[in-house]
């Protein structure tokens, strides 16, 4: 009934309908995929700076041996909340923001399929992080058991703020699941006529697969935190051997979520790079179909490798062997991706605009992270690498120079389409080169201190690690400062400063989003385009 009245109403006042409410209400009430995308992206950036500030505290404490700045208990809170914020507050919302902006535009849909749920899935996120951050100010401090919250450190031996941690993770999970449902429903139902599955842009494909991973594993995380909650506050013994439980079972449950989670944070990045490289190589992506199949294989394999995070927990040899081999297998489809990007560049006509610079840095540095991941898969050697800075180096290469560089590449690639103006190229190049150099000073020496025997998550270290840690901290401060260049650039872009751009923006860009005007109008594809 209401649908009918709405339609009549809209037909009568078309012009009124197109003017969004102004001020704060526009953002609070919005159901527009572009507005919600913008909200997600700014939220992710604010969280990136917040989590980054915590990393600065960590690096300041580790600048030299001894305890100078923070107490060990607060140091542990910093490593924990840094991890939680970067994973759930920065990387995941940024990808959801990009999906909101781009998926409807790429498949020729007018909006996301479930716009009100879209509004809700964003607006519960700030509250989740307010709860998490406020727990830091509780007496006794916030969560201090690492973002992996292994029991019984997170149960019997944790502070009362654990309840807030559990509640905030629940809200993050609900938000992610709703976002994922929205992406799936949109892609299944709202593709323009002629947009068959194998014509979908790779960013849409990778996000579709990511959304299925999210729906599969976020409930597992919810289960894990709930069990932690009841073990701590209600006397259950899921993870307590004294009551018939098993602390290692926690790790199995956590990593059954945790490993697919890793791919949730990298598959959309693969999609982004697969959009950008062909544009600036002015050549078709070498193997579109094999990219789709590789993404799907990575997603499927991600469910059978979780225990490679747990080689030192005392699993049977057979299990260790299985998880080692399954993990090594993942490098095959991942290799296919990298080879495809290189083959796309091969005999192309390349130019090096800022999105391409970030994409190239992604390919090189993500591959370094991937190769160290292959080394980590080898169980006997993992006994030496496990829980050292070698692991810290590995996952920061795949997450910072992988996921986050891809997000930056995406922002530079689509920003002119969003604002209608070219961003400040000088600032962008400064941002790129400062970030590229400092991020390597920050993370590369971590391989060395890790191999030399420095454990992760320690607030103080033996004297032999002092020199490298000084360099790592300096790289960290420089990388942190470099992000203010990005902030300045984004503020300028949002004020619509810069030269107007064409609809296509980039010479080699292809796809529906480059056929609509720049800036993208508030409503696009109200009548679906026809794909040839």
């Amino acid at each position, binding site marked *: 009934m209401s649908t009918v009245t709405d339609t009549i109403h809209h037909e009568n006042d078309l012009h009124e309908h197109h003017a969004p409410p102004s001020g704060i209400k526009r953002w609070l009430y919005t159901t527009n995929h572009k507005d919600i995308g913008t909200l997600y992206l700014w939220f992710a950036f604010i969280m990136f700076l917040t989590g980054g500030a915590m990393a600065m505290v960590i690096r300041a404490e580790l600048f030299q*041996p*001894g*305890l100078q700045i923070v107490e060990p208990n607060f140091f*542990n809170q910093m490593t924990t909340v840094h991890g939680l914020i970067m994973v759930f507050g920065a990387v995941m919302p940024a990808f959801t923001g990009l999906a909101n902006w781009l998926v409807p535009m790429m498949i020729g849909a007018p909006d996301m399929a479930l716009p009100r749920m879209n509004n809700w899935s964003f607006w519960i996120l700030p509250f989740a992080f307010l709860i998490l951050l406020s727990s830091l100010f509780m007496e*006794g*401090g916030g969560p*201090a058991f690492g973002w992996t919250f292994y029991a*019984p*450190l997170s149960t019997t*031996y944790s*502070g009362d703020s654990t309840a807030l941690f559990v509640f905030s993770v629940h809200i993050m999970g609900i938000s992610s699941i709703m976002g994922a449902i929205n992406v799936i429903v949109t892609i299944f139902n709202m593709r323009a006529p002629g947009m068959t599955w194998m014509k979908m842009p790779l960013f849409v494909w990778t996000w579709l697969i990511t959304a299925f991973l999210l729906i599969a594993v976020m409930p597992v995380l919810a289960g894990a935190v709930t069990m932690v909650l009841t073990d701590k506050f209600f006397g259950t013994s899921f993870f*307590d051997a*004294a009551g018939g439980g098993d*602390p290692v079972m926690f790790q199995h449950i956590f990593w059954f979520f945790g490993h697919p989670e890793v791919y949730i944070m990298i598959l959309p990045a693969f999609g982004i790079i697969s959009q950008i490289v062909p544009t600036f*190589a*002015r*050549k078709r992506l*070498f*193997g*579109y*179909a*094999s990219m789709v199949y590789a993404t799907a294989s990575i997603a499927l394999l991600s469910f059978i490798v979780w225990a490679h995070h747990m080689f*030192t*927990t*005392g699993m049977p040899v057979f299990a*260790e*062997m299985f998880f080692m081999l399954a993990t090594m297998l993942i*490098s*095959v489809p991942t290799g*296919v991706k990298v*080879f495809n990007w*290189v083959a796309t*560049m*091969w005999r*192309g*006509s390349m130019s*090096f605009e800022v999105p391409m610079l970030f994409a*190239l840095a992604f*390919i090189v540095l993500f591959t*370094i992270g991937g*190769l160290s991941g*292959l*080394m980590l898969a*080898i169980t*006997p*050697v993992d*006994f*030496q690498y496990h*829980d050292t800075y070698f692991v810290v180096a590995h996952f920061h290469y795949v997450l910072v120079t992988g996921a986050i560089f891809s997000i930056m590449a995406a922002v530079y690639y689509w920003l002119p389409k969003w604002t209608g103006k070219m961003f400040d190229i000088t600032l962008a190049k400064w941002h790129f080169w400062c970030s590229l150099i400092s991020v390597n000073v920050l993370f590369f020496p971590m391989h*060395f201190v890790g*191999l*030399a*025997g420095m*454990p992760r*998550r320690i607030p*103080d270290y*033996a*004297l*032999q690690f002092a*020199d490298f840690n000084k360099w790592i901290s300096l790289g960290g401060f420089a990388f942190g400062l470099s992000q203010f260049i990005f902030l300045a650039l984004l503020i300028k872009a949002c004020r619509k400063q810069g030269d107007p751009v064409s609809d296509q923006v980039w010479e080699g860009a292809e796809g529906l989003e480059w056929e609509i005007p720049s800036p993208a109008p508030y409503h696009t594809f109200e009548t679906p385009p026809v794909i040839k």
Partner: protein
Amino acid sequence: MLGAFNCSTAFADSVSDLDQYQLNMRKGVTDISAEVYDLHMLMFIICVVIAVGVFGAMFYSILFHRKSRGAKPANFHESVKVEIAWTVIPFIILIVMAIPAAKTLIAMEDASEPEVTVLVTGSQWKWHYKYMDNDVEFYSRMATQAGEISGKLDKGVNYLLEVDQPLVIPTDKRVRFLITSDDVIHSWWVPDFAIKQDANPGFINDAWAKVNEPGIYRGQCAELCGKDHGFMPVVVIAKEPAEYDKWIGERQAIQEQAKAEEQRLLAMNMSKEELMSNGQKIYNSACAACHMPNGEGLPAVFPALKGSDIALNDMAAHIDIVLNGKSGTAMAAFAKQLTMSELAAVITYERNAWGNDTGDLVQAKDINAALNGQ
């Protein structure tokens, strides 16, 4: 027990042979650790070769296939042959990696036929070693002083990697480590043996080493285990079998003497000064990590003892919580960690320090009575 503290200074002074700019894993001192090192290098070299190939092709394109050089884009895409090749070749490389890895793994995990067995128990934040074949057991705590950490004292060469009582094992014998925990998960790591094994509460893991070289080998706890996770070193001394036998004999004699001494102290009453000065030492090594040297604890994490109800009033409850711990919290049971006279001293200290001026004295015989359920 106290006699063993004397040997600590000797280890603290030994020169660290660790390189400031060490880039790579150490080869270690067991056959397994050497195999692990070789495997690591094999993996590393394969990865470097792959990286050089991939990045080489990429940078060749970047240099020569650029628009500014007038490169015209080719139009090729999708080639079944190429795609099969770059799926099959990595697969073959993986098999080359997996075979030696599987061999080493099987050898590592076979802890059968041990000649010496040591039970390693982690607890917040110290290790306990119990020799299963001899009547010897002791705690091993970090020996680095608080002043070195806070910067009031100069840091020694083995800063954070030195303990009061190191684990001693024989060389050239298969030593089996049974690893468990009293509280949270810890991880016992000695890089030179290529052993890193989690200590899970309620479960026992095992690992083994046959050390080829006598020497001092240092490691750390590798699994986040709470506030002082970074201050939980592992030090192992490998001695020639003859020297080891001599050492374990001496240790056994020392522990028997300590037990006799404890029986003697049971009958004695110690003065308040003696109890307080012993108690302070024990408090600082066993209790201060959580309850803090000033007895104020960490608000909402570790309770204060200064002015607490138990420390001021209910003495029976005080003795009970120290002896048996408090389930569902981080408070451990100290009945087996300290001797009766040490327990008496530390409880007396807690009831009389920081303005807790109860005037109560606790003697070893009070502890004995509590332990025997009287």
